[in-house]
């Protein structure tokens, strides 16, 4: 290839790190420099950091460093998985934790690698941008003396024509083909493909753009989760969320207090295909939106189709049933009456839930049980749900009395009942049968503790509310990455020369040759094509 035989020439116009394959071997810089002052050391260090080899090693290190995050559960994506890991590997987990294995992508070591990589990247592209800026305005270089030593050399003799006309034609041919041209005597020097280097610089700069927008932009956003039962309303305020994670620069005033009421969740189930009976094929949450200024509108949230309101994206992430349970206490007062979201346990939505009644008298009450949207039986005789739609809903409860432990200020999960200070009074393991109810039914609790009513079984949705102002910018930079990549990998950068001389016995001789600037498998073919086009013009 021409450029390996003529490496030093190929680098002019394109600045490359000193260990780039196209640049001249070490120009005395680095280790064998005689005296290294402080400045010398700094320069040496900087040159190492911005070398191709460092970039390459850092890239490979980054790839290796990303792997453990796929082997061990990560706090950011799977906090329950991490908790579980601590339980199953009590010895190993703390050690892994101490080296941030559960937070790989925010860990000191992972961050160090990519930050170094990006420092190297910036150090590498800034001088190249400056250089490229100048190169773009420079004239194509002088025509070499002997074209025959270059790539794709073609020589063409013809009996008629004048040198001047042929040079004009050569210039026009090259301009047409997108070359920048310059005449040197009876020859034309031409260069094209500046977009290759531009693309390369756009690509690398856009990578910095992605990193910065992800890192900084993400800080202005927030993300919250909320469970909404059919008929209930959610107001976009900090307190209303079940969980909320603000970005670093989040300001509470950024929350726009609009409200969303869930009218109904429609679920479509597969009813024909026997291999997939009961598999949900569509979820549509119908909602009413109420703006601060009082205007209302309808909206829809589907999986893959979030609702975009007030700079927020509302995603439908989960669903289930929330039986409405009313508990009357031993004194006949209504101590509890609410829709209680139950957590789905299987594909047919057998769901687990807990009802805590702290205000029941004389003693606090706790109910643990299941909801079955379509009740049936396992072979063992135990109840289960056999279909996810609410065709024959049933709830069943074990009942506890005593101290719920909710008054001591320690936060407790609403999905768990701490029975250490409680006594079971009904259900498995006691003399009294578990409470089993269909909608509208009421059953008395033993020992005059009161009664439980199963009113109805609405559905709930769990939604994720996101605000991320940087998202669009990340996309813009990602598209630039792709465009830059395309132009830098596939636009050939090449020089072509055409020289015309007068033939020995009248007529003219045209010579054509090219020089590749980087990867360019099509150069010879391109030179021949140019020679042909030129000949056609004569």
């Amino acid at each position, binding site marked *: 290839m021409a450029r390996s035989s003529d490496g030093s020439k190929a680098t002019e116009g394109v600045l*490359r790190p000193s*260990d*780039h*394959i*196209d640049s001249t*071997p070490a120009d005395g810089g680095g280790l064998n420099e005689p005296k290294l002052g402080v400045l010398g050391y700094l320069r040496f260090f900087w040159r190492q950091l911005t070398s*191709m*080899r460092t*970039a*390459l090693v850092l*890239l*490979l290190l*980054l*790839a290796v460093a*990303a*792997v453990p*995050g*796929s*082997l061990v559960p*990560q706090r*950011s*994506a799977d906090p329950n998985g991490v908790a579980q890991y601590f339980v199953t590997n009590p010895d190993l987990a703390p050690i892994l934790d101490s080296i941030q294995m559960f937070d*790989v*992508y925010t860990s000191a070591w992972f961050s160090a690698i990519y930050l170094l990589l990006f420092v190297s990247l910036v150090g590498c592209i800034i001088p190249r941008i400056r250089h490229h800026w100048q190169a773009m305005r420079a004239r194509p270089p002088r025509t070499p003396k002997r074209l025959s030593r270059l790539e794709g050399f073609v020589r063409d003799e013809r009996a008629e024509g004048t040198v001047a006309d042929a040079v004009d034609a050569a210039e026009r041919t090259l301009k047409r083909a997108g070359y920048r041209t310059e005449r040197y005597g009876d020859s034309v020097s031409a260069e094209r493909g500046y977009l290759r280097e531009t693309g390369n610089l756009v690509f690398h700069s856009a990578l910095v753009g992605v990193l910065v927008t*992800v890192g900084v932009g993400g800080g202005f956003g927030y*993300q919250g989760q909320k469970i909404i039962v059919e008929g209930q309303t959610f107001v976009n305020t900090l307190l209303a969320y079940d969980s909320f994670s603000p970005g670093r620069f989040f300001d509470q005033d950024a929350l726009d207090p609009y409200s969303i009421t869930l009218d109904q969740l429609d679920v479509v189930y*597969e009813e024909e*295909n026997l*291999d*997939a009976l009961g*598999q*949900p*094929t*569509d*979820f549509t949450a119908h909602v009413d939106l109420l703006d601060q200024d009082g205007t209302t509108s309808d909206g829809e949230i*589907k*999986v*893959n*189709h*979030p609702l975009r309101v007030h700079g927020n*994206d509302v*995603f439908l*992430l989960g669903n289930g049933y929330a039986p409405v349970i009313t508990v009357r206490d031993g004194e006949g007062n209504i101590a509890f009456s609410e829709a209680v979201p139950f957590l789905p346990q299987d*594909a047919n939505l057998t769901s687990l839930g807990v009802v805590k009644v702290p205000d029941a008298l004389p003693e606090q009450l706790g109910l643990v049980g299941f909801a079955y949207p379509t009740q049936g039986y396992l072979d063992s005789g135990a109840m289960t749900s056999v279909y996810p739609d609410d065709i024959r809903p049933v709830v069943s409860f074990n009942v506890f009395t005593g101290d719920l432990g909710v008054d001591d200020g320690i936060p407790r999960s609403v999905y768990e009942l701490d029975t250490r200070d409680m006594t079971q009074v009904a259900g498995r393991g006691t003399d009294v049968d578990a409470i089993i109810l269909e909608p509208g039914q009421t059953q008395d609790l033993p020992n005059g503790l009161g009664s439980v009513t199963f009113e109805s079984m609405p559905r709930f949705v769990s939604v*994720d509310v*996101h605000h991320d102002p940087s*998202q669009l910018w*990340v*996309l813009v930079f*990602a*598209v630039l*990455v*792709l465009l830059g*990549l*395309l132009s830098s*990998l*596939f636009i050939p950068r090449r020089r072509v020369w055409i020289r015309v001389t007068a033939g020995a016995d009248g007529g003219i001789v045209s010579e054509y040759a090219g020089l590749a600037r980087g*990867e360019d*498998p099509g150069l010879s073919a391109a030179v021949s094509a140019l020679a042909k086009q030129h000949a056609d013009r004569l």
Partner: protein
Amino acid sequence: MTPSLDTVSVILVYSAIAVYALAFIAFTMDLARRAGEVRTVAAASVGTAASSGSGGTALLDREQIEAGDATASRGRLVWLRIGLSLTIIGFVVHLVATVLRGLAAERVPWANMYEFSLTATLIITAVFLGVQLRQDLRFLGTFIIGLVTVLLGLSTVGFYVSVVPLPPSLQSIWLIIHVFVASLGTAFLGLGAALSIMQLLQHRREGLPVESRFTRMRAFASLPDAEKLENLAYRLIIVGFVFWTFTLIAGAIWAEAAWGRYWGWDVKEVWTFVIWTIFAGYIHARSTRGWRGVPSAWLAIVGFSSVLFNYTVVNLFFNGLHSYSGLTE
């Protein structure tokens, strides 16, 4: 109606596997022939080399081989032709099978692991055949059609699931785009890696003393030299890399629509990123003094191994949001 289409599709898939297996045998015969035919030439030339002294042996041998090539390559060409023809037949059967599966499911046929294998291997074969139009790479048939036969066979036996409707999370235009482009990328990266393997073997052969090149690694004598193989690999891999970059971006857009965040370091996302980074490393390596040649070829091979790992082990044994094999429930 619906199930019968799928049944026909499955029968065709098995037929395609059988035809590919035959094509693989033909391509392998070609490689074996290359080895055999060079040996006969070598026997002759070693004789002459011995009698004519050590002087211009290398040059002489090259001429001998080329001369031998012209006369003896006929039998080999037959095997290459048979291999390629069988590949084309297998491809057509495979294509029909895939289309029928799509018709049976009434959607694109790449929504679970079985279907994805079906489509991805189809695309690998298509790219392998398509590339032949520009560059004769039939000698890669053993690797590529071998890989296709194994992947298609394993996934049909191991991952087959009957047609079921798409869960809502997969009902997205991005499923179509993202997965399709990922398959295209896989095909190009796979061809590139196969060339890199050839390159390493050829490099090894080029390092052998001239005399022993006739007794060892003979099959490579008639293949392009290591530098040519490397350049070919590079050109295929950069195409694959662009597709992979697009896959990454399209995946992020889809993840945003489905889960509300464009990037969350889910296991599948991690591996897509790791693969992308390895190939970015490969492209740099090719431009770094001291890394072109053997080290960069190894990077291409490691990169494609990660693609295969991502597709098999990560799908089956790592749990993440992307558990779409359709095998769990």
